[in-house]
């Protein structure tokens, strides 16, 4: 039975220091995040006790791996909007708070960009000697190094993992035609002699397996990291690593909405009998990405051949039937469903008709039109460095330098809605409880985690408040309580923990 698709996005940003190509990226990331934190009050540190990235959804555990993250996390904070802002390995990372609607999750993802912009301008203002740190919302440095933009979806633990894998692989391999962020050239390390002037996805070059626990080596299409950050008997959190970091609001909206829909359908047995199993999913991933004309036909396990767009249309048609049968509750807010499905339909129709007509809608198309237009105008060869530079600068998060920001892209959100999301938590998940505790009682919150808060009430011991259900701790549940209590001690007492 499909559970509410609580969802969120974690983004590792590329980081560089202007005029200092050899600068240490860990230091730069720390400076950047501290510059943001120093500008806001009530910083609270992250608590690692429940982190277990070595647990595998297939039911085993990799020895020692939890410590990897422990050692490399340097700066960690949780914000009043319920998000986590930290240094992960050598990147600044923003993990959005839990949301139940895809559009709400877009708002919090965009808030992350706004937070990065504020961090960058703070560094510029206060650093001495003057320093400029720049972040890029992309997924590769064009030299074979990739970093992730991971999505998370709450799922029913009772659904066998193998069923998720078989149901979602054809979808994941082909959804890039909607949600890819585009890339000039290729970084594929294997043997392939095809020329790739432009490809649909940032990430396709880096995937080597169908299923696995890794995120940095031998990356799998379906990642098996099993850290539910909730009641693990009821829920699993599907950790999706195959996506690109998107700047287009529509790309992110569709990425989350389409995926939440397909996962709900898998939970409800609604993809049964679709028979879209691919003969060679890992190869197909690149075949799709390397063909922006969308003509490439993929071999299915049953011998048929289908284009990526045809596979996506089959999923969409099945999704339409699913929504007719169960409504749109799986997308969090009933009223959002029809809007999302209408846009989903429009995008698939235009991809079949002429992708160029989506240059104001999808990242990969917008970037391709920009790159192709510039190359035409100046008569540049596909491998000209100026085209690679345009690719990188598309993702520059600074307003003045962002090429994405100069394009007339369709938007879904008003700027003030994004700005409010930098400080206000979502109201309909436990992020509301987390964020509100931090804004109301910052001095009493000793540490925070996805599924608990630890209070220091001035007396031993510290009090831990578990939040094992992502759908509890909402404004509806605790909003009135927050109005009633004057202190963290009163809050904890009222909660009876």
């Amino acid at each position: 039975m499909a559970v509410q698709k609580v969802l969120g996005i974690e983004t590792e940003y590329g980081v560089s220091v202007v005029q200092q190509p050899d600068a240490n990226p860990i230091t730069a990331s720390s400076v950047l995040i501290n510059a943001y934190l120093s500008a806001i009050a009530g910083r609270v540190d992250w608590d690692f006790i429940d982190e277990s990235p070595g647990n595998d959804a297939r039911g085993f555990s990799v020895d020692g791996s939890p410590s990897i993250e422990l050692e490399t996390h340097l700066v960690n904070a949780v914000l009043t909007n319920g998000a986590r802002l930290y240094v992960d390995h050598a990147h600044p990372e923003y993990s959005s708070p839990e949301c139940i609607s895809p559009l709400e999750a877009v708002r919090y993802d965009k808030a992350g960009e706004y937070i990065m912009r504020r961090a960058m301008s703070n560094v510029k203002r206060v650093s001495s000697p003057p320093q400029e740190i720049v972040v890029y919302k992309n997924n590769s440095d064009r030299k074979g190094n990739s970093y992730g933009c991971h999505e998370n979806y709450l799922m029913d633990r009772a659904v066998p993992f193998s069923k998720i894998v078989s149901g979602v692989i054809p979808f994941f391999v082909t959804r890039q035609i909607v949600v890819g962020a585009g890339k000039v050239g290729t970084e594929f390390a294997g043997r392939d002699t095809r020329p790739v002037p432009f490809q649909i996805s940032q990430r396709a070059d880096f995937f080597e397996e169908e299923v696995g626990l890794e995120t940095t080596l031998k990356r799998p299409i379906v990642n098996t990291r099993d850290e539910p950050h909730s009641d693990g008997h009821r829920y699993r959190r599907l950790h999706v690593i195959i996506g690109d970091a998107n700047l287009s609001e529509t790309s992110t909206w569709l990425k989350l909405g389409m995926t939440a829909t397909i996962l709900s359908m898998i939970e409800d047995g609604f993809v049964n009998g679709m028979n879209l199993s691919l003969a060679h999913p890992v190869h197909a991933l690149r075949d799709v990405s390397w063909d922006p004309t969308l003509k490439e036909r993929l071999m299915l396990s049953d011998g048929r051949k289908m284009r990526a767009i045809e596979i996506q249309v089959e999923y969409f048609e099945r999704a339409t039937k699913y929504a007719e049968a169960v409504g749109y509750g799986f997308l969090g807010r009933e009223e959002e469903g029809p809007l999302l499905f209408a846009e989903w339909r429009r995008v698939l129709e235009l991809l079949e008709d002429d992708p160029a007509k989506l240059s104001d809608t999808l990242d990969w198309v917008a970037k391709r039109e920009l790159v192709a237009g510039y190359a035409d105008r100046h008569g540049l060869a596909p491998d000209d460095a100026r085209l690679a530079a345009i690719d990188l600068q598309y993702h520059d998060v600074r307003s003045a330098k962002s090429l994405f920001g100069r394009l007339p892209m369709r938007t879904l959100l008003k700027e003030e809605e994004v700005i409010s999301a930098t400080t206000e938590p979502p109201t309909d998940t436990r992020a509301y409880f987390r964020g509100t505790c931090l804004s109301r009682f910052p001095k009493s919150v000793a540490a925070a985690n996805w599924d608990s808060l630890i209070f220091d009430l001035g007396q031993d011991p510290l009090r831990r408040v578990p939040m094992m259900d992502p759908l509890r701790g909402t404004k509806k549940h605790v909003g009135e309580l927050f109005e009633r209590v004057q202190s963290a001690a009163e809050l904890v007492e009222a909660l009876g923990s």
Partner: protein
Amino acid sequence: MAEREQVKRGSSEREEEVEEAREPKADRSEKLKAELDDILDEIDEVLEDNAEEFVRNYVQKGGE
């Protein structure tokens, strides 16, 4: 939330909406091309000065 007019309508009007969307498609393509031309006219002002150096120096190690 701000929503665009064309996706705001109910599903009963969907067919009609698709028809409407089809008609101005040719115009839409031209409009998008014209906008791109305007951006290309000015893009050199904002592009990094030395593309080759910029691309070479952008190195990211570690992640995920």
